């Protein structure tokens, strides 16, 4: 298990990334955005989709892969209704009132994911002095369970739990919520902690029991 100090450090990393991302999102939407205090969650696979409303809930998911000095995944989950509200806000600003164009909507949401993910990772990179790259974002609109299973399944080689740094962005007036999950690869967690100067206590081998 991780120590309280390590968990706090990871929350703070999440906070700095999310703060930067919220600013970027706010500029993109011209709306006030608030963020919730980031949470570090170590939970069984089965419970992860409950975080976003259950395995069958229809959601939009935007996935980005982080690579470079550390590797990991970013997944932004937005309920179907909130995704529609967001695309309306986004597309109105470019003068397109016909929001029935699925391609435009998908492209707008993907770009939103790009802005949030990139600004989060830019802040992280600056803080840790690690060189980090973010992939082109990819969007899927489908069941929450199906969307969330992919970035988590890779944790299956390590144990029965997933490690997430979770934040929620909330748009002021309409109450649109974006669920942001950063899922670092296992090795990368230690590197991340080392980079910000929180020494990882040398856990003995029994730590390899999957209790990530």
């Amino acid at each position: 298990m991780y120590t309280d100090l390590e968990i706090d450090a990871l929350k703070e990393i999440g906070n700095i990334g999310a703060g930067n991302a919220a600013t970027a999102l706010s500029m993109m939407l011209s709306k006030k955005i608030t963020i919730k205090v980031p949470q570090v969650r170590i939970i069984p696979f089965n419970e992860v989709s409950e975080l976003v409303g259950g395995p069958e809930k229809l959601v939009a998911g935007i996935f980005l892969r982080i690579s470079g000095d550390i590797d990991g995944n970013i997944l932004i989950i937005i309920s179907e209704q909130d995704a529609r509200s967001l695309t309306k806000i986004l597309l109105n600003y470019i003068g397109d009132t016909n929001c029935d164009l699925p391609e435009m909507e998908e492209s707008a949401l993907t770009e939103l994911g790009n802005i949030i993910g990139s600004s989060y990772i830019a802040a992280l990179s600056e803080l840790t002095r690690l060189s980090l790259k973010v992939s082109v974002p990819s969007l899927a609109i489908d069941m929450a369970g199906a969307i969330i299973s992919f970035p988590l399944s890779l944790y299956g080689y390590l144990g029965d739990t997933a490690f997430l740094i979770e934040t929620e962005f909330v748009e002021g007036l309409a109450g649109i919520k974006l669920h942001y999950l950063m899922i670092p690869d296992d090795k990368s967690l230690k590197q991340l902690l080392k980079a910000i100067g929180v020494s990882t206590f040398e856990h003995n081998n029994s730590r390899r029991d999957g209790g990530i």
Partner: protein
Amino acid sequence: MSTIIRVGMAEYKAAKSPATLITLGLGSCVGVVLYDRMNKIGGLAHIMLPDSTLSSNKNFNPGKFADTAIDALIEDMLKLGINRSNLVSKIAGGAQMFKIKSENNIMQIGKRNVEAVRAKLNQLNIKLIAEDVEGNYGRTIEFFCETGELTIKTIGHGVRII
């Protein structure tokens, strides 16, 4: 009324007719159904990954991996009284939800899961009689031990019975 038994990620369960086995929101995971038609006993495994030998933890849950979950499921079904030689299989899932180019093949985990399941079934001489796999969308599946039918529900890609 038949009982509905929910199988979560990395779990496997066996049941007798008239029970229904379901698993919700399969993405890159694969749902493997085994069925003994004569005794109306079914089993469902929700596997996440292809290969248990890559597990860094030797004391793993067998339900996670294609090569171990099927064996474990058969063990449970034997306890319910199946005749091993009656077993047939249906599989669903193994989608690639996101299209991203990657230096390694982790993005193709769904496809690799499907291949690993097929290989394992082949090795055990269990006939794969129907499948609905890959694609880029999620699936919820329900297996009726009474009829041997597997219903696949999707969002925007219809409902199928195999």
